[in-house]
């Protein structure tokens, strides 16, 4: 378990644990969706769970949201110990699911009122509507909202009970850049309010921008964890050389490239080479490509990011 980062909170005190999961298992026959994971989520942090499709992150999140029951394992949520998420725990959680569909032919306000009745206490609906900037849509039927507005509605519903923990399962998937930026701003605001946020996302930029701490899952297990900086530092490579694959390059040529640069990968048509000494590496790459008469289209030098960490650990892209 990682140490509690006492200095990471402005209040200066020791951060409480919002959720502690120990030895969580969920198997579907031979499929080990969640295979003995343990994790700790601190109050007031944005905790991100990354993993390729089928890694088990959705099952993990669904167990934490109380939508699925684990086979075994222990959960401690806001100090309450349990085998599964109880109704009392759900009363202090807000959830934005990956796909948010709402009952049709009811208005935004009616949707809020309906959800308000599910919780033991709720914030004034008017305030929440203002917070997610849906004032002009109060009396609009839900099905007439745009994608971004629907997502803001979903987030508003998750805030209705003034939750301590908020789950955001791919909150910006399918949104245009402006709508995505609006949602990010909203998440930043929630972070400032010391809400604990559990985020899953396919967007590397989103994870880097928002996350305080990241767990990476694959095959039902946790394979890495750390702050975004720690994870990138863990790659032990300072630079990335990126270029588009020349159609003339064959498997043999790539093998040869791999001998020169052991740390390289190929994603779609893009070659990423991870190096420490950029000058030396670049001159070797240039020599090789000149000898072979290959072009280096869209050549770029950059710092490694979470996508690289992800590729390094799982061999797959975040969106795969």
């Amino acid at each position, binding site marked *: 378990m990682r140490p509690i980062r006492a200095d990471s909170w402005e209040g200066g005190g020791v951060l409480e644990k919002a959720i502690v999961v120990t030895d969580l298992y969920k198997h579907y026959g031979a499929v080990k969706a969640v295979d003995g994971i343990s994790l700790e989520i601190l109050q007031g942090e944005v905790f991100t769970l990354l993993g390729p499709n089928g890694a088990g992150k959705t099952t993990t999140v669904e167990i934490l*949201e*109380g*939508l699925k029951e684990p086979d075994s394992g222990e959960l401690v949520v806001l100090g309450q110990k349990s085998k599964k998420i109880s*109704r*009392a725990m*759900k*009363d202090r*959680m807000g*959830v934005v*699911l990956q*796909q*948010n*569909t*709402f*009952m*049709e*032919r*009811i208005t935004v306000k*009616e949707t809020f*009122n*309906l*959800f308000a*009745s*599910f*919780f*033991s206490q709720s914030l004034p609906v008017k305030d929440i509507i203002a917070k997610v900037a849906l004032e002009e849509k109060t009396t609009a*039927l839900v099905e007439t909202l745009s994608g971004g507005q629907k997502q803001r509605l979903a987030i508003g*519903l998750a805030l209705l*009970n003034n939750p301590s923990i908020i*789950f955001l399962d791919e909150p910006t998937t399918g949104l245009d850049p402006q709508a995505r930026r609006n949602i990010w701003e909203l998440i930043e605001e929630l972070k400032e309010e010391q809400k604990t946020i559990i985020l899953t996302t396919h967007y590397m930029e989103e994870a880097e921008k928002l996350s305080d701490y990241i767990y990476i899952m694959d095959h039902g297990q946790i394979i890495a964890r750390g702050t975004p900086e720690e994870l990138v530092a863990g790659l032990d490579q300072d630079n990335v050389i990126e270029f588009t694959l020349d159609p003339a390059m064959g498997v043999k040529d790539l093998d040869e490239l791999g001998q020169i640069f052991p740390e390289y990968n190929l994603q779609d048509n893009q070659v990423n080479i991870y190096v420490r000494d950029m000058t030396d590496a670049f001159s070797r790459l240039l020599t090789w490509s000149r000898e072979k008469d290959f072009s280096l289209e869209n050549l770029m030098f950059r710092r490694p990011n979470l996508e690289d960490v992800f590729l390094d650990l799982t061999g797959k892209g975040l969106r795969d």
Partner: protein
Amino acid sequence: MQSVGSFFRTFSFRLLRDKFACFWLLIFPMLILGILILIFGNLTGDQFSFNSQVALIDDDQEEISSILTGVLEEIAGAENGWLQLNSYQDLEEARAGLGAGTYQAIFRIPPGFSREIMDNVSGQFRGQEVLPAGIEFYFREGEQSSEVTVTALNQVVEVFTGELYLETGLMLPAQRITAHSQMVEVRTEEGVSFNYVNYIIPGIILMAFLSTGMEELVTNLTVPRDRGILRRFFATPLQAFQYTGGLILYIVVIAAVQLLIIYWFGRWAFSAQIDLWSPLPLFFTLYSLLVLMGVGLLIATLARNASAAGRLVNIVFYPMMFLGGLYFPLEGMPGFIRLVTAINPVTYLINGLRESLGVFPSSTSLELNLLVPGIWLMAGLILGLKKFKWEAGQ
């Protein structure tokens, strides 16, 4: 419990905003009630094989009345004849038979009939005022076979009049033998008076309940589940029974509104005379709604997804409606249909409801009327509570 009320309100708002659903649930039953009454308004229970049993009373016993009875006997004696004659001495006895449904009509030749005709013929030549001779018919009001029989008998009398006056070479309109028809209120064995309007109203009520109790339940359980709407609900402290509670409350209220609309419309437009507000009819009404919701739960449980559930509802809806005796009595049907009728809970519910309302005697016992629908209800409840999947695609 607050959420039960919230769901009730939400479902109600949704319905009021859906013009098609409003029409289907609230207006359509009135429409079908009107159409059926227009088509089958004169329908009776023994409609489907036309065979007239007529009670014949000859209180005249003179020459001309004997000729007339002779003519009738000849018609009755014909091969494949539609007429069966049964001679009576006593009018009251014959009327009892008519009331019990044994006869479609009574044909009575009153005393003095022959003499009136003779006076008529002779008076014509003396230039005296001509008074018509009369025949009396008795039939059941609103019953088609009875009315058809009387019409046919009238034709016989018409032809007979024509033949009778043929020899005089002249027939004055006033010389026609007039038929005095008297309507007799029908009392079946149990003392129930038959009237199609009263008969059809319980049928329309159950038809409306089929769409509310069964269709609405299935739709509102399976569609939100498959679309992930329920999943979002259950990520809150909400429990399944609270959602179901709100849904059932909504269905019961809509059913009550349907009941009132049909009842009020039947009384206002067709002068229906049924008394719904007694314990037994109210019990059968509520029981019917419960059973149909049970069938709905069964369908929602057995169907893999919402579209399969929708198809299954359609497959079940029409046989339940048409082969449950909602609109007309189902007798003399072929074997397969008889089987569907026998296992159809609607058959028993409608029998029970009609019997309890006193509009038509049940062909099945009260025990069966409770038991068979009860089996469906229990099957729906047991299977539904144990096996209904609240999550899609499992």
